[in-house]
């Protein structure tokens, strides 16, 4: 019998010596160049971290490659960040340039620190998920190829965090990101009645629908359900509980784009991202329309926001009507909320810009 419930390795066993010595005793840090952090301990010791972009979806050989660098320059230690970047940790300043050199040989960018576009939090997409309305890794690659310069520099007014999720389950951080792409279905589920009777629990399926669009099949001989299409907003929750109701559709599937979310409590409280483009069609392999919107918004932001101002903070200051004007993104009825707490978004003042 195998061992169970052993839990993960103890983090203590994974820490470099300099960290063990200075655990909880860091005094301050500096970003000495894009991608390189210097942390100084109370006792004056210095730790250098070289941050490196990763595609996240990697082969074991990739991991071995980076292990090799860590063995050479970091006494066999490395870490990953909460956004998939790799960090090489060393107490030897002279190693920094060497690490950078080796990493660049592997084709990996050094950056992702400070006021940059860091790595994109994303999901499985067509690589692995049955729910996907779009791919994730592909969109990320297309976006980051275009925004590469923003990863390796720190020229933006503040942090810009991008997320991509392949369906509105939003695995990741789409709902609170400065910029986000989310896969959306736009056709109601297609019901395979035979499979429904075989695979699905009817009451659970009916109950799963947030809008009450799912009803029992009118023909009592058919143990299945029907969907009132006018009540369906393609959330896919029925499909999660009942595999016989797929929504994926080559014509209908595509992505929506969101902006203005954040997580940190710095300055303004955390904010939700808000829909700026309700729908763009899937256009693999490079989703040019999507990349275009993301880039355009980023550049308008970079040009107009004040120092230290996150995307959402900037937009809330100038007003969303101004945001749509500056970016040239058309405002449509779909932008107007009609879900549960919609009224909280309706304007209750004569204050607005033209």
């Amino acid at each position, binding site marked *: 019998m*195998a061992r*169970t*419930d052993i839990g*993960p*390795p*103890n*983090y203590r066993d*994974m820490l470099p010596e300099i*960290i063990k010595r200075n655990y*909880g005793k*860091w*005094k*301050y840090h*500096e970003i000495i160049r894009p991608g390189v952090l210097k*942390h100084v301990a109370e006792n004056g010791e210095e730790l250098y*971290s070289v941050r490196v972009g990763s*595609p*996240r*979806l*990697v*082969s*074991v050989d*990739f*991991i*071995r490659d980076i292990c090799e660098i860590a063995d050479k320059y970091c006494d*066999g*230690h*490395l870490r*990953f*960040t*909460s956004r998939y970047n790799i960090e090489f*940790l060393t107490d030897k300043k002279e190693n920094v340039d060497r690490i950078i050199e080796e990493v660049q040989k592997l*084709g990996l960018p050094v950056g992702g620190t400070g006021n940059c576009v860091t790595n994109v939090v*994303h999901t499985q*997409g*067509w*690589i692995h998920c*049955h729910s996907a309305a779009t791919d994730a890794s592909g969109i990320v*690659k*297309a976006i980051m190829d275009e925004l590469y310069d923003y990863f390796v520099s720190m020229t933006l007014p503040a942090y810009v965090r991008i997320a991509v999720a392949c369906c509105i*389950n*939003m695995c990741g*951080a789409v*709902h609170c990101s400065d910029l986000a792409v989310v896969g959306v279905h736009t056709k109601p589920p297609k019901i395979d009645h035979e499979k429904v009777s075989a695979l699905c629990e009817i009451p659970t399926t009916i*109950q*799963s629908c*947030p809008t009450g669009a799912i009803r029992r099949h009118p023909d009592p001989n058919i143990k299945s359900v029907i969907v009132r299409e006018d009540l369906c907003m393609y959330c896919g929750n029925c499909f999660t509980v009942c*595999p016989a109701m797929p929504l*994926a559709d080559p014509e209908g*599937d595509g992505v929506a784009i969101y902006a203005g979310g954040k*997580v*940190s*409590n710095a300055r303004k409280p955390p904010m*939700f991202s808000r829909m700026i483009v309700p729908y763009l069609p899937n256009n*693999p*392999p*490079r989703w040019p329309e999507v990349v275009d919107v993301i880039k355009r918004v980023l550049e308008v932001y970079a040009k107009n926001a004040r*120092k*230290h101002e996150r995307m959402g903070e900037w937009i809330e200051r100038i007003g969303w009507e101004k945001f749509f004007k500056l970016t040239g993104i058309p405002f449509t009825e779909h932008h107007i909320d009609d879900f*549960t707490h919609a009224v909280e978004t309706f304007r209750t003042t004569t204050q607005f810009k033209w």
Partner: protein
Amino acid sequence: MEGETPLLDELEKGRWPSFVKEIKRAAKKNKAALDLLKVQELSYKDKITHWKHGGIVGVTGYGGGVIGRYCDQPEKFPEVAMFHTLRVNPPAGWFYKTDALRKICDIWEKYGSGMTNFHGSTGDIILLGTKTENLQPCFDELTEAGFDLGGSGSALRTISGCVGPARCEWAMIDTLDITYNLTMEFQDEIHRPRWPYKFKIKISGCPNDCVAAIARADFTVIGTWRDSIRIDQEAVRDYVEKGFDIESVVKKCPTEAISWDREKGVLNFVAEDCTRCMHCINKMPKALRPGLDRGATILVGGKAPIVKGAYLSWVIVPFMKMEPPYMEVKELLRKIWDWWDENGRTRERLAELIERLGLKQFLRDIGLPAVPQIVYRPRSNPYVFLRR
């Protein structure tokens, strides 16, 4: 392989590192990876996913940790007809020694596709794609190597915390230790799903919230302090002398707790007005430091849109000391789970249940005091259930 995947080949171009290159790398040694590449190309052509719902697959004794997955074209792509992923619980803070990583690589080369995610969005090591029969032996070797599975399904999910005291001067709590300690304490809750739905815990050392806990965790622990920011006025002046634009920083203080007295060269600070947002500290790390009376704010309910919409976490305990063995937080978690388990409907996350029954009811049942820090503002409606 060349030329067979014209759409994906496009994504080998460009400056950002390419996942296609990675799949191709794995595909050279591994048939499943090759089929994965082809399925992905087909999806790019068809604009649709080719994966189907997974059945119940897993390892002995566990109810989760594995995501079952099947291809909808098993004849064409037999190597990925079954293509389950394993979620492996990483060390807190995602620190690794290379030998540990190499062991995982070796095991995964042996039993799986050789493709991984470092990491998944919850923070697990994702071992991407294997057959049902490989799950158990793969798991056995993983535990042998010191790794265990993370959470999936209606269970406690893999806990994560920011880098914290290991490398950050602002960690007000020991995020790594709390992550590890809770993970070890709640192994059963992680491995044996038995709740209405998933439950996530995330821990950030300070209000910068570098693991996005407030947005993505049912139970959010964020380090904070109760006393005053510590100011080294000398160091402030040093910033200013070096040309640092202190006005732009001061202007963005949300409470006007700080102001810069240019004449005197002093950063004025009103401690009782500061809401500890971190902004000024972030911008002048050499001059400003958090206070010393440290603990955490506890929030609950963060989640993505399914089903009632997305929620940010809500403050339920403004301040709690966080010392090992973290009994207070563990007790609170158990109370919350019991309450949720008792009252929650299937697929109802904590936030949705609290919204349905009311935060007031939740606080009362859990035994937490009502304090104004819990809300932005009091109710505007007169509909008070005074006697309920």
